């Protein structure tokens, strides 16, 4: 009986575990001191996980020649970005080009080999990936080195080269996080290589990890589940229960663990105890295979306890639950065919990078959204949905550009019109300003000041009033000269001499400050004249090239418009095709579920019929009622 029910054992997670830290995009990007502001701008978007935005900027800034200092870092990042977007061909091209360049420094080369290895691994080219990963030198950081090592081992596991994988992982010491994955995979390799005792011992160590990292908690659950089912199959129910009890009740493996715990109790003839985990499962989603099986397991336990009335009741409940679920699946298949599943999936997805599963809990229970959680747990659907989301984002991007491009065309036209309208007035204004003459006058002033300074001619910096006083004194002196020798003018001559002396004294006293002020005024004048000449040059350049520049911009706008339209059409077609593909995957998956429910339903009906047959054939006997 036990063997008949153990369909779920096929779901025991004894595949290699792949660490999830790489979701932090591109680990190990070399730390650089940013020396190009624009490279920093690319990183600003990259560090916010805006991979598309940073890739676009990277490509634009590279073409604009703004990444000169960080050219190689930028290439490495570009390859990594393509890799993270799933553009394996482009990523491979970038890394291979970096490696072909003999001047690429060793640390960039090592990272390029590493990423190339990852690209090849993701494409399933494990031999080539292995070769690339083994080319890496000694410059990788600790985490990247650990990831490299695990990738090599996982590649060997995929190729069923268990002995080599064991050799690769056996004495490996890495950071704690990676070491746990290494131990888990070594355990898997040993079990597959026919050494279950050693393998399970390693899995047991992983199963007892003390950690706060959610990923390691999930790994611990997987290890415990694998041990639990292995022990169950090896008829060691007590050991199985110990491992299964270590699985978290809230984790994704909890249903399988509860089912297994019940089977461990049943194997030890503890049917009453087995009922507890199995009945706990009955409150859960019936699409979970463990929950489906629990509907058969509970009446089976009651039957083993001799409580035939409860067994019958629970078998009937199972049949009714299976039928109801089959009917709901039918409704959902209809909804999926009508396209509503994708709307729900998009609504649940948020920004497409994280939190899908958390947000699914908030969705209303409707035919189109009911099985999303289950579907999203499948790799094929999840990958397909990623593509669908990418296409949706591309469609939005193209639609936004389609709107902008119209405005761009208007802008070019308006600019050309404005230029043509303003040109005559601007030319007229410019004609009134002769910067060359102004410049000549400035030069003359400068020479005059320098001559006065050299001769210390204090009158050169006299104010208007002082200049007038000097002129008056010159006129007085001329008049007095006409009366030279006449004693009647002696007093006047003395007064004039005194007045000139006072004036010159004052001019001499003010000289220092005035010459400083004059110097400064000349400097300001120089700056103003320089500005005027700069503007004249800029204005000249702007006027000369403007029509050509506007025409070139107009051509660029014209050329890009049909590209947007053509791409938008192709994106829409691909999106529709991707939507149909997702619907096919979903329907196929749900039909598999329906078939399994059919099988369970047949088993329940068969068990029920057997009970009725036995009851009809046997004389009545007192029942062993279970304790509630």
């Amino acid at each position: 009986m036990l063997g008949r029910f153990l369909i779920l054992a096929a779901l025991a997670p004894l595949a290699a575990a792949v660490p999830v830290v790489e979701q932090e995009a591109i680990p190990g990007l070399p730390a650089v001191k940013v020396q190009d502001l624009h490279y920093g701008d690319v990183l600003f978007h990259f560090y916010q996980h805006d991979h598309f935005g940073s890739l676009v900027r990277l490509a634009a800034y590279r073409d604009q020649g703004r990444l000169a200092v960080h050219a190689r870092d930028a290439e490495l990042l570009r390859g990594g970005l393509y890799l993270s977007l799933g553009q394996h061909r482009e990523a491979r091209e970038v890394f291979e080009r970096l490696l072909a360049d003999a001047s690429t420094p060793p640390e960039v080369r090592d990272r390029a080999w590493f990423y190339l290895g990852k690209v090849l691994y993701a494409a399933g080219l494990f031999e080539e990936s292995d070769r690339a990963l083994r080319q890496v030198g000694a410059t990788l950081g600790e985490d990247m080195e650990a990831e490299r090592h695990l990738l090599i081992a996982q590649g060997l596991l995929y190729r069923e080269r268990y002995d080599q994988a064991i050799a690769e992982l056996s004495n490996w010491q890495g950071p704690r996080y990676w070491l746990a994955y290494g131990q888990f995979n070594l355990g898997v390799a040993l079990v597959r290589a026919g050494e279950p005792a050693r393998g399970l011992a390693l899995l047991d160590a992983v199963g007892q990890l003390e950690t706060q990292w959610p990923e390691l908690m999930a790994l611990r659950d997987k290890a415990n589940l694998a041990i639990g089912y292995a022990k169950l199959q090896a008829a060691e129910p007590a050991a199985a229960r110990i491992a299964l009890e270590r699985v978290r009740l809230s984790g994704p493996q909890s249903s399988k663990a509860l089912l297994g715990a019940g089977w461990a109790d049943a194997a030890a003839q503890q049917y009453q105890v087995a009922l507890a985990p199995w009945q706990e499962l009955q409150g859960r989603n019936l699409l979970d295979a463990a929950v489906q099986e629990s509907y058969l397991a509970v009446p089976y336990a009651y039957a083993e306890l001799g409580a035939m009335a409860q067994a019958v009741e629970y078998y009937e409940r199972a049949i009714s639950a299976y039928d109801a679920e089959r009917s709901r699946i039918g409704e959902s298949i209809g909804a999926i065919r009508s396209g509503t599943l994708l709307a729900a999936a998009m609504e649940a997805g948020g920004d497409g990078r994280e939190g899908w599963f958390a947000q699914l809990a908030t969705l209303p229970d409707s035919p189109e959204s009911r099985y999303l959680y289950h579907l999203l747990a499948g790799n094929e659907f999840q990958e397909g949905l990623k593509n669908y989301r990418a296409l949706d984002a591309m469609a939005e991007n193209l639609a936004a550009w389609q709107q902008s491009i119209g405005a761009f065309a208007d802008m070019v036209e308006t600019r050309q019109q404005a230029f043509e309208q303003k040109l005559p007035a601007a030319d007229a204004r410019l004609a009134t300003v002769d910067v060359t003459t102004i410049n000549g006058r400035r030069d003359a002033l400068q020479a005059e000041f320098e001559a006065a300074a050299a001769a210390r001619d204090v009158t050169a910096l006299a104010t208007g009033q002082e200049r007038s006083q000097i002129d008056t004194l010159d006129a007085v002196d001329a008049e007095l000269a006409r009366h030279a020798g006449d004693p009647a003018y002696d007093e006047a001559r003395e007064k004039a001499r005194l007045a000139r002396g006072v004036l010159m004294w004052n001019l001499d006293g003010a000289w220092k400050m005035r010459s400083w002020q004059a110097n400064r005024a000349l400097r300001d004048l120089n700056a103003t004249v320089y500005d005027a000449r700069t503007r004249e040059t800029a204005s000249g350049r702007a006027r000369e090239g403007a029509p050509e520049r506007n025409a070139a911009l107009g051509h660029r706008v014209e050329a890009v418009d049909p590209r947007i339209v053509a791409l938008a059409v192709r994106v829409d077609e691909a999106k529709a095709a991707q939507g149909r593909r997702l619907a096919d995957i979903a329907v196929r998956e749900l039909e598999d579920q329906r078939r399994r429910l059919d099988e369970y339903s047949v088993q329940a009906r068969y068990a029920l019929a057997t009970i009725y047959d036995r009851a009809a054939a046997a004389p009545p006997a007192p029942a062993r009622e279970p304790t509630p």
Partner: protein
Amino acid sequence: MKTTFITFLAAMAASMPAFAEEAAAASAPEDRSVLDAEVQSLRREVVDLNRDLFMLEEDLLFPASTQVAVFVSMDVGTFFAVDSVQLKVDDKEVANYLYTEREQEALKRGGVQRLWLGNLKAGEHEVTAFFVGQGPHERDYKRGTTLQVEKGVGAKYVELRISDKASKLQPEFVVKVWE
């Protein structure tokens, strides 16, 4: 005992197809790989198109002769966590930016934010930035910095860098002009 162990091995073998499916697309049906290839090709073309449009938009709206860009960067950031920045050019507010946690983190990791991209005539301009955030001991902190910028005929880039002045355990706001 023997029977159950064989079942267990069968269970392990059964988990292999799923394992292989995760890694390789090689086993995918033809129509699926055609569609995947089309998605890849579209993504590449959309990236290229966006690159061209990004450059076109910049050439159109912010030609090099008048272009001025103001960037914000941060080194270490131990003594200052930036909440917002206000930017004035010639006493006119041109940007008022509130940072998300993710953006703060991106700055701390070495990202440089292009805060403002605009047009200025040739000649002298005054650029003033006010940073608001948490200073040492989680105290609210506001600091301003001003710079006279001489705009010539080429594009002008101004970097507002928040750095740590370890000797005074204070943040320091440095302005650097790039040609």
